[in-house]
């Protein structure tokens, strides 16, 4: 855990790295040091320049100024190939694995050992198996990658780097795609790797993870390094302040409020998932106006299907969903017309059209009616005025409202959705993982917006894998387990441990507790 030889030659040292892109200085004289066996947290909001910095170290970009020293020797890499050859490995945020190939094939690809061009599959598998045992990254070499869960795929990515002799491992937001349990496992793996001498650069914006696993933290803000601190001396508050540049309210301020009439009533709901399994099976739940009900649960316990049934996207097999006086029967637009806002779990897939401009994305739900269209003809002045206003009000950082949404950072994409959804006159807000993969500043903002909706009298259904988020926002907590709401709790009188146990099925006498209670360890959000 502690740097073994912080006084010795650093594994990697970057001095005064500067990278300019047209119109922006992405990195401005940034310094960074990693020693062997050390885990360095690289923190920063989206767009702060973390990715640019590691891409320079990995040789994807060339710095305009500054030097990089690898074990004391100056390094110039004009391509990842050279960086790999010198012992630098990178696990990209979007996995670089070939889905139909096996684990072993993916790991040896590009560095195959062959005899006369022929692969020695058995030797490759043995080698991978040996490597996987040495580093405690358990994988089966002959498994096909596309059949593996995300957490295991990530192990394959890490093994791929280790197979090439990586001594410095760059992990670019590795926990963004992981469940709380998988995150815990990854953090354990990182500690093991560090203790065997590998240096790690760990990019994240989850402060809890940084505090849990790193030795030192370097914080970037707007392309500049604003501080490098020992993790032991840091707190969530001090790191958040460094990142954002002002003190951040981590504890959400929330006034007491008396809930009104029932807006959403889910009664004995049954819904099938994509594999035709009954993943919501008898869920019952009510949300009143002016309250936030948080649905806590380990991912894959029917949250997605519950939300999609409520919003009319997925058909209902049994039971009912009632919004106001209307029964929902699988018509998304009719559900929306009842005054329902929906912040989907997968924003790229379900919330935005990446190739469309911000202006067009802002009217995705209303493009067809006045003032944005008149007798079927679009009114672009109204569309633009709407976008200009919302970009301002919801603090979307963008060069222009004509910018395509696909080119924005994760936090800004989410703000576009939040702006579109919460600017309506809503009765019910359904927010699914609203802050996943979003930086601290944006998390704070999105939380404020959800609280504001509640204070205006909206009913809010919040689904989140982050227990912190559930606890700080919810007026009531619904725990979902295997498609049923197994408990309805008051956050004031409940502990994280109790909720965690219920999430793992510990509430039932015959429940199979898997022992890995989600979110009790390092599940992440910046709220405390």
């Amino acid at each position, binding site marked *: 855990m502690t740097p073994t030889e912080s006084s010795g030659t650093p594994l990697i040292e970057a001095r005064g790295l500067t990278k300019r892109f047209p119109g922006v200085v992405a990195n401005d004289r940034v310094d960074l040091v990693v020693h062997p066996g050390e885990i360095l947290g690289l923190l920063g909001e989206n767009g702060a320049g973390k990715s640019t910095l590691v891409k320079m170290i990995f040789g994807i970009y060339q710095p305009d100024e500054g030097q990089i020293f690898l074990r004391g020797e100056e390094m110039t890499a004009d391509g990842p190939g050279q960086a790999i050859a010198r012992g630098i490995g990178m696990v990209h945020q979007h996995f670089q694995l070939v889905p139909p190939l096996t684990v072993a094939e993916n790991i040896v690809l590009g560095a195959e050992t062959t005899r006369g061009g022929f692969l020695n599959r058995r030797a490759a598998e043995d080698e991978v198996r040996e490597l996987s045992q040495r580093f405690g990254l*358990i994988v089966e070499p002959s498994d096909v990658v596309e059949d593996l869960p995300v957490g295991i795929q990530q192990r394959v990515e890490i093994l791929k780097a280790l197979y090439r002799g990586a001594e410095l491992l760059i992990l670019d937001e590795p926990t963004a795609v992981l469940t709380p349990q998988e995150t815990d496992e990854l953090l354990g793996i990182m500690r093991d790797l560090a203790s065997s001498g590998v240096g790690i650069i760990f990019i994240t914006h989850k402060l809890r993870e940084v505090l849990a696993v790193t030795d030192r933290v370097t914080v970037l803000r707007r392309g500049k390094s604003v501080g490098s601190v020992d993790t032991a001396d840091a707190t969530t508050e001090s790191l958040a302040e460094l990142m954002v540049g002002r003190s951040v309210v981590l504890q959400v301020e929330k006034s007491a409020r008396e809930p009104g009439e029932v807006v959403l009533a889910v009664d004995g709901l049954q819904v099938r998932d994509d594999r035709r399994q009954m993943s919501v099976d008898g869920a019952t739940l009510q949300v009143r106006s002016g309250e936030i009900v948080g649905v806590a649960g380990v991912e894959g316990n029917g949250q997605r299907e519950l939300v999609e049934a409520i919003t009319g996207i997925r058909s209902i097999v049994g039971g009912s969903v009632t919004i106001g006086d209307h029964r929902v029967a699988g018509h998304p637009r009719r559900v929306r017309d009842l005054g329902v806002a929906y912040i989907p779990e997968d924003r790229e897939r379900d919330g935005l059209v990446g190739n469309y401009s911000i202006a067009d994305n802002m009217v995705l739900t209303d493009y067809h009616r006045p003032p944005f269209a008149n007798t079927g003809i679009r009114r672009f002045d109204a569309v633009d005025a709407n976008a200009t206003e919302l970009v301002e009000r919801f603090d979307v950082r963008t060069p222009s409202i004509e910018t395509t949404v696909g080119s924005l950072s994760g936090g800004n994409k989410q703000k576009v959705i939040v702006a579109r959804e919460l600017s309506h006159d809503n009765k019910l807000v359904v927010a699914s993982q609203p802050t996943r993969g979003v930086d601290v500043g944006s998390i704070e903002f999105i939380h404020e917006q959800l609280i504001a909706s509640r204070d205006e009298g909206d009913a809010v259904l919040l689904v989140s894998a982050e227990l912190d988020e559930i606890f700080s926002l919810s007026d009531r907590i619904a725990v979902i387990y295997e498609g049923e709401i197994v408990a309805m709790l008051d956050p004031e009188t409940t502990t994280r441990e109790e909720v965690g146990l219920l999430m793992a099925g510990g509430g039932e006498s015959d429940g199979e507790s898997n022992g890995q209670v989600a979110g009790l360890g390092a599940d992440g959000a910046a709220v405390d």
Partner: protein
Amino acid sequence: MTTTSPAPTSPASAPGSARSLLGRVRVDYRILAGLAVIAVAMIIAYQWDSQQTTAVAARTIREAAPLILAALCGLIGERSGIINIGIEGQMLLAAFVGFMVASSSGNLILGVMGGMAAASVAGLFLAWTAVALKMDQIIAGTIINIFGLGVTSFLYVQGRTMPSVPNWPIPGLDELPLIGSMLFSHGPLTYAALVAVVVVHVALFQTRWGLRTRAVGEHPSAADTVGVRVYFVRYRNLAIAGMLAGLAGFALLQSASVFNRGMTNGKGFIALAVMIFGRYRPFGVLSAAVLFGFFNALQAQLQFRQAFDIPPQFFGMIPFVFTIAVLAIAGLRTRPPAAIGQPYEKE
């Protein structure tokens, strides 16, 4: 916490696939069933009319050969991510150039090499438009088809002849009933097609070339980040694939012995159907091509015999109707390489 958990002890082979010297062989039961029905029908028909059955059997393989070679051409390109609908044009160019070279030099070897070179150049052209120009690959393939048909029809002059391609019956084996004339008394290009199936299969699944090809066709940026040169792989594969299309074109000359305008007659397109029906796997291609070859042979035999009082054009339709039916059914469940048709842009 994960370090102590034991390694999962799953067996080395996944269900549905068997390991052998040839790597993972996946069996497509639909094609196998079709072949079994044909085999049984042939054996029964053989009892009834051995001469005609033998003729159909031999012709099945002869008709299948150019389809196999052309489909393997498509397969090698598509496995690396480039859709090749220009096979028809490549075959036509190869047949034309091969014929002209063979007829003017009197040397068949030179003719084959000329044909392969011509189709290979056309393949490189396709790779260039796809890689360097990032052009729509369907349009680029169409260019090759139109160019191939136009230029060969324009330059073609009647009256030339070339040496005929010899038949190479395999002594001892060619005497076997039914099997002998079906498998062991063909011209060199037919044997080449059968050998090519094995070679491409082993290369695709057992060699570094094959691993890199599949990676580039499925996820080029993953291949790129580990140092595989995506563009180079695509150029090289299309050049190699073009040579197979060249053999396919020359295989048409093997039976016709003379070049005719538009003599491919849609075989390049049927080859694409064969490739898809064969699920982008060499042995799948072989099986599918034999099915198509059989319908071609049947059609030819029925036309020749005039057994029924039906205009011969109706029999001529059979292979095409079969193609449409196969694509409608097979296209539903086949998964092409993921990166197919998309230009790769480096970061």
